[in-house]
């Protein structure tokens, strides 16, 4: 028995070696045929093929749809209309007044999205930073608080929206609480201003934990000795924050800013369940307009939806370029 074990091990080793050496011959062949610079394509080729199939091809199809009309789904049945869809979307008497635009709902979506991005991203970064600063201190129950702030991130957007809908609806938890204290109730989701406020609030509540976590990691990466030196120099807390913490946290802040902004521009799921874009079009954002135009109307305008989605993609592209530029600048200025 004892003699069998080493020979079985050798056999297993030989088999393993044979399997591991299988790619050797084709690789030698490839190396002899391809120059060094081209060999890399062989490795990234399969990945690129998959990426192309599921990313570049849909983008190309989207481009084609945006240049075609009719309600037909299959590209071969769709007539070419040139830039008609774009010109219809962009036709406005006064861009700041959606009611003067041919497709007013699109422009309501554009301005609502712009307003949402400004408010939501600004408030979320401020609150995330504040929370991260507090959670970075040695406070009682720090672990519990970190978990509490991160918990909403684990919830599905639909669950988040449903929970808040139950709280905010006319006979919801919030109004019941207000009534019990003698305060008159408000129809939070029917007043356009309140409905908008709550979409911002719920979105911040749901995503803040994720960004807090990134900023917390950034804060913990700052060496302690810098703070000790500042302390020895009798720097005030505000000066320490402004001159040390903030610059050193900048790479994390740039990431949070850009990720938050992209996510805010793409807002759909929570709002769709919470307010459905209403009341009226008070909380209709760009993605919801695209969804409604392409999939929810009885007459589906796939071309118009594709054109709107390309305009949205253009906005996202600008933000991504800003992110790259910001990261490069921060990278160049980094002391590390």
């Amino acid at each position, binding site marked *: 028995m004892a003699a069998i074990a080493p020979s079985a091990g050798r056999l297993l080793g030989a088999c393993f070696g044979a399997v591991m050496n299988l790619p050797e011959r084709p690789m030698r062949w490839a190396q002899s045929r391809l120059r060094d610079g081209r060999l890399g394509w062989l490795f990234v080729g399969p990945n690129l093929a998959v990426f192309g199939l599921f990313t570049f091809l849909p983008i190309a199809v989207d481009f084609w749809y945006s240049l075609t009309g*009719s309600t037909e789904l299959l590209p071969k049945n769709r007539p070419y209309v040139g830039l008609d869809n774009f010109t219809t979307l962009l036709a406005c008497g006064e861009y700041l007044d959606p009611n003067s635009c041919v497709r007013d709902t699109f422009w309501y979506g554009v301005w609502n999205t712009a307003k949402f991005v400004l408010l939501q991203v600004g408030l979320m970064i401020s609150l995330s930073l504040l929370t991260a600063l507090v959670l970075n201190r040695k406070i009682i129950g720090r672990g519990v608080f970190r978990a509490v702030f991160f918990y909403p991130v684990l919830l599905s957007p639909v669950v988040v929206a449903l929970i808040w809908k139950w709280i905010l609806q006319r006979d919801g938890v919030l109004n019941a609480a207000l009534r019990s204290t003698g305060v008159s109730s408000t129809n939070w989701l*029917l007043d356009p201003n309140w409905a908008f406020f709550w979409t911002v609030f719920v979105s911040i509540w749901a995503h803040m934990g994720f960004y807090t976590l990134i900023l917390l990691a950034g804060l913990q990466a700052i060496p302690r000795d810098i703070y000790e030196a500042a302390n020895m120099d009798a720097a005030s807390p505000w000066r320490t924050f402004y001159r040390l913490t903030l610059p050193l946290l900048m790479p994390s802040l740039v990431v949070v800013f850009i990720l938050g902004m992209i996510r805010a521009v793409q807002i759909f799921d929570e709002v769709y369940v919470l*307010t459905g*874009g209403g*009341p009226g079009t008070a909380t209709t954002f760009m993605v919801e307009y695209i969804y409604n135009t392409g999939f929810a109307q009885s007459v589906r305008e796939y071309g118009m939806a594709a054109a709107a989605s390309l305009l949205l993609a253009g906005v996202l592209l600008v933000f991504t370029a800003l992110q790259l530029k910001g990261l490069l600048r921060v990278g160049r200025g980094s002391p590390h």
Partner: protein
Amino acid sequence: MSTPLGIAALALLATTTVAAVEANAAKIRVACYSDGNECEATEELSARFMKDNPDIEVLIDKMPYKSILESLPVQLAAGNGPDVARVTIAGPIMKYFLDLTPYLKDPGYWETNFGAMLPWLRPNATDKGIYGLPTQMTVTAPIVNKTLFEQAGMPLPGPEATWDDWVAAVAKVAKATNTPFGMAWDRSGHRFAGAAISMGAKYFDANGDPAVIDDGFKAMASRFVRWNEDGVVEKDVWAAAGSGYRDAFEEFANAKIALYLSGSWQLTRLQKQISDGFDWVVVPNPCGPASCTGMPGGASFVAFKQTTSPKEVARWLQWLASEPVYAEWMAMTSNISGHAALQKGGVKYKLTPAGNAAIAAFSLNASKISPVAYRLQGYPLSGALFNPVVDRLSQAINGQITLDQAYQRITSDVADAIAAAAKK
């Protein structure tokens, strides 16, 4: 061959034969949504059909109504749709319908008994194809919480009462009983259309082209917006949007409104959910200067061209359409019969007294439907006429746009949708 061996061989043969028949059975996939229990009832009846027709297997795929509206057209366009689907709005998917006429034993039976509803499945008036089986006839009408009226000491307005009479009555009932709202309407352009037609709306011009906005339409739209602003109508239902709006049925079932404008398809839910919670009655559609009409409607099982089993689909639908089976089906689902012969008392409903009264009242409302309403329901792009009304009136209710702007937008939205559908 010994006896036990012979029995075993026969058993094996029988098993393999059954397996072979099952394997060769033509499969009919049915995309089905329910208002009440329509899919369950169809499944139960189909089990009996399959027993008598072992060469056909009927598979009922239950899905939400939203999937029928949003996913089915995409499946069909991709050539990956079901064999049959239960639909209410035919227009957007009409081009995929299969004309069953060549496969039916007696097309005349269908014309005689379903002739009023078959045109709704046809692309134009000259087409005489039979594209599906109406699974029910529906009619919109107000459903009233009678208990609230009794508590308020108010009599129900009579059969000739106008919309204004009803609004005044429900406002008084709501005030007297401390009910949050007087009434709510389903958030639907179809439901609004019945009331608008009563006020004189025509929806089409003299040439037969869509022309939604006219004096009759404006008369009802201005009233409806005002009732929302006054708080007589529950604002949560129409003012919200997308999936954010309130289900008016739930508000009625929870006694938060005195009058609910919906339709006969709610009968199963009314019986099941309200039960003896309060007394409810279906009343005649309120009148306007033009008529006292609701909107007709109905769902149908339609067959699709891409089915590989057209004969079997026709056999199954033919069986469901046969008078005794159809009568049983209507009784099981508490629906108004789409079968003309059965409309004259041929269905033995198993309903509560309130349910029986409701069926009678819905049937009475069905007999008073305006020809304008039938024409509108039969228009292939009726959805393109209904949806902008909801979206734009909702904006007007919220004060985002004026009523005049809403009228302009409805006109342009309808024109855009029709132009988009016409592009080839």
